[in-house]
Structures are given as structure tokens and as C-alpha cells.
């Protein structure tokens, strides 16, 4: 038995397996045999979502190069994402560029609603797909969606399960839960609440009409994610919107100041190269 690959040949002389492609090799003193038809094991240790992670990193570089804040908005269908986005876009579009990508299985209705609010919006139809992925978002990123110091909202497919796993290159996931849903959703769909940085509790104008225990919901959400920030608002009445808009503005300023830091570091490095290079030129002239 060959001790290296267990290929079944009686083999007293060590032979090299360094070339993985070397499927058909000759053992010294033995017959040529074909490894291509014999079982062998290959260790991979590779993340199933590795490819999505690569595309997400590419998107993240595009955003970082422009100092953009990108938020991935996730929720059940009907939580009020599009209404929230329309109100948010109208409130912020004069301060900095606001762009939206909308993900739905079918129709461009959401993008049309958001464009009517005066900001660029691109719809991605996932067809049968239940989530956006980084590759699809990368393809949607035309110039209208990339602006220096801007904020891009990615409205994911209404689904509290699948989008939790797919990094799109965003700075943060924002999960939206409305008070017309069950207060125990953070426990029922824990992966999404664990993956999010901020939870928006929407439609609070309807609280007098529904049996929704806000404190209990907050408790459930913090069990899953003790660091989760939580804001209560109504996109329809405007109550609580100011805190959400401030949160977005703070994020935008943070991305922009990091962008400035990177640019200043690049500038300093370029200056250092110029001075260093200039010194050499002078020496050459002398």
C-alpha cells in the first residue's frame, strides 16, 4: 500500500505527490497507474459563501473610494420599508446625495415610488430569488448610484430569513419591524436580528389599535443582540423620524471623515514620494 495516497500499490520507494495535477504518475520500479479513477480526499475548508464575500468586498471598495454610507434594509414584507425610504429620501436629499436600490421578486413599483420622491433608484428583480446577493448589487451599481459622500439604501427582498446571510458590502444592516407584526419576531428569526446594527420599530402610530408589547419586543431583540440599537418611529405620521434621520446623518459624516483620513494619508504618502524623488533628480542634475 502506498503510504502517501493509499493507492493500493506495493511501493517501497518514496515518491513525490507534490503536484496535485500529477494524476497519472510512474512509481519507480512499478507500473504506470492511473490515479484519476481512484478515490482520494481533498481538504477544502472553504466558506460556502466565499464567492459572495469576494463580491461584497469589491462593492465595499467602491463605496469606500467615495466615502459613501451604505445601509442594507431588511424586514418582512409589509413592514413599511418603501414608505420609510420615501420619507427619508425627501428629508435628506438636499443635504447629500441619496440613492436607492430596491430588491423585489417582481415589478419596478418600489423604484418608481422612490424616484417620484426625487432620488435615483434602481430596481433589482430577483425573479424566484428570496434575497439580494453581492454579485447582483454590484451589477446594479451604475454611476447614478455612486456619489461622493452619498448614502445608498439597499431595500432588500421582504424576508426575515435569507438576506441575513448575504453581505452586500454594506456598512450595516437595518432591520425594520412594524407593530402590526408579532413582537416575538426577534426570537423567531434570530439570525436577522443578530446580524443587524439597528432595529427600527415602525408604525408606532398604530400602537393604540394593536396588541403589541413594545417593551417585550425590545427585551426579545436584546436577548438575541445586546448591542442592537433600537429606534421607534412612524414613517407615516413622522413621529420618531428625527432620531432615525440623525442616525443616518451621523453615519454619513463618519464614512466621509474616514474617507478624508484615507485621502490625507494617500496625499501625505504622495508628497513624501515627491520629495524623495525630487532629491534624486537634484543629485542627478548636479
Amino acid at each position, binding site marked *: 500500500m502506498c503510504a502517501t495516497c493509499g493507492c493500493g500499490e506495493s511501493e517501497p520507494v518514496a515518491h513525490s505527490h507534490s503536484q496535485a*495535477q500529477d494524476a497519472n504518475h510512474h512509481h519507480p520500479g512499478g507500473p504506470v497507474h492511473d490515479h484519476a479513477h481512484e478515490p*482520494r480526499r*481533498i*481538504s*477544502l*475548508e472553504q466558506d460556502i*459563501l466565499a464567492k459572495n464575500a469576494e463580491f461584497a468586498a469589491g462593492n465595499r471598495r467602491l463605496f469606500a473610494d467615495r466615502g459613501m454610507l451604505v445601509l442594507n434594509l431588511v424586514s418582512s414584507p409589509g413592514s413599511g420599508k418603501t414608505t420609510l425610504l420615501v420619507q427619508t429620501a425627501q428629508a435628506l436629499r438636499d443635504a447629500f446625495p441619496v440613492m436607492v436600490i430596491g430588491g423585489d421578486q417582481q415589478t419596478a413599483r418600489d423604484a418608481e415610488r422612490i424616484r417620484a420622491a426625487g432620488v435615483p433608484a434602481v430596481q433589482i428583480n430577483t425573479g424566484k430569488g428570496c434575497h439580494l446577493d453581492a454579485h447582483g448589487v454590484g451589477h446594479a451599481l451604475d454611476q447614478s448610484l455612486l456619489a461622493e459622500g452619498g448614502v445608498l439604501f439597499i431595500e432588500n427582498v421582504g424576508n426575515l430569513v*435569507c438576506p441575513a446571510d*448575504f453581505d452586500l458590502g454594506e456598512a450595516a444592516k437595518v432591520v425594520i419591524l412594524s407593530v402590526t407584526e408579532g413582537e416575538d419576531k426577534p426570537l423567531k428569526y434570530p439570525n436577522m436580528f443578530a446580524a443587524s446594527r439597528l432595529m427600527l420599530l415602525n408604525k408606532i402610530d398604530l400602537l393604540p389599535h394593536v396588541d403589541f408589547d413594545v417593551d417585550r419586543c425590545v427585551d426579545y431583540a436584546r436577548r*438575541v443582540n445586546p448591542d442592537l440599537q433600537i429606534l421607534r418611529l412612524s414613517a407615516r405620521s413622522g413621529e420618531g423620524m428625527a432620531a432615525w434621520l440623525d442616525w443616518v446623518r451621523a453615519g454619513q459624516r463618519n464614512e466621509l471623515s474616514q474617507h478624508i483620513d484615507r485621502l490625507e494619508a494617500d496625499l501625505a504618502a504622495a508628497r513624501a514620494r515627491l520629495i524623495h524623488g525630487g532629491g534624486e533628480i537634484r543629485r542627478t542634475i548636479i
Partner: protein
Amino acid sequence: MHEFSLCEGIIDAVTTQTRQQGFSRVRRVWLEIGALANVELDALRFAFEVVRANTIAAAAELDIITLPGRAWCLNCAQAIAIGELYDPCPLCGGHQWRLTGGNEMRIKELEVE
């Protein structure tokens, strides 16, 4: 049903290996899936049977190794076992812990020929 997307990722990774490692058939795929990962194992097995068709892994069997949920409790400064993402620390009853294992979704190994 993002299990279909996950299986497409698995088949894609396996097919890439075909070119690099020179094999003609995949007999078995070992996955490591954390107990707290956002994956339904029955759906994953079903999706794998659909997605593997007409690929190099058309007859491949799927072996799923489940990895336990583990965390580090910040209050207790100790490693703890976690069964669900909303579980309290079994020692102090708090939720201030950080997951250290149990959300893996990895292709561990292939058997090929």
C-alpha cells in the same frame, strides 16, 4: 429557500477544484454547518440533489457535520455552550456573550476520483 443559493456556491467551489486538482468525479462532499447557522438541513439536502444534477458532482453524497454553538460570556469571562441565539449564559443568566462557534457554513472536504 436560500439553501439553493448555498448549494450553487458548493457546486461552484467544487467545479473550480476540478480544474485545479484534476479529477473527473466527486463521490462525496463533507460540509460543516454550525447548529446556529441560518440553514435548514433538510432543505439543504433537497437543494443539493437538485443543484448537483448534470455537474461533476451529479452522484455525490452529502455528509453534514453539525458543529455546536459556542460563545464567550463577557460577564463570566468564560467559554459557554449556546443552543439558540437568544439563550442566556448558563452561568450568569445574561445575554452579554459573543458567539465563537456554531454559525459556520463550510465545505470541509471532498472525496473525488
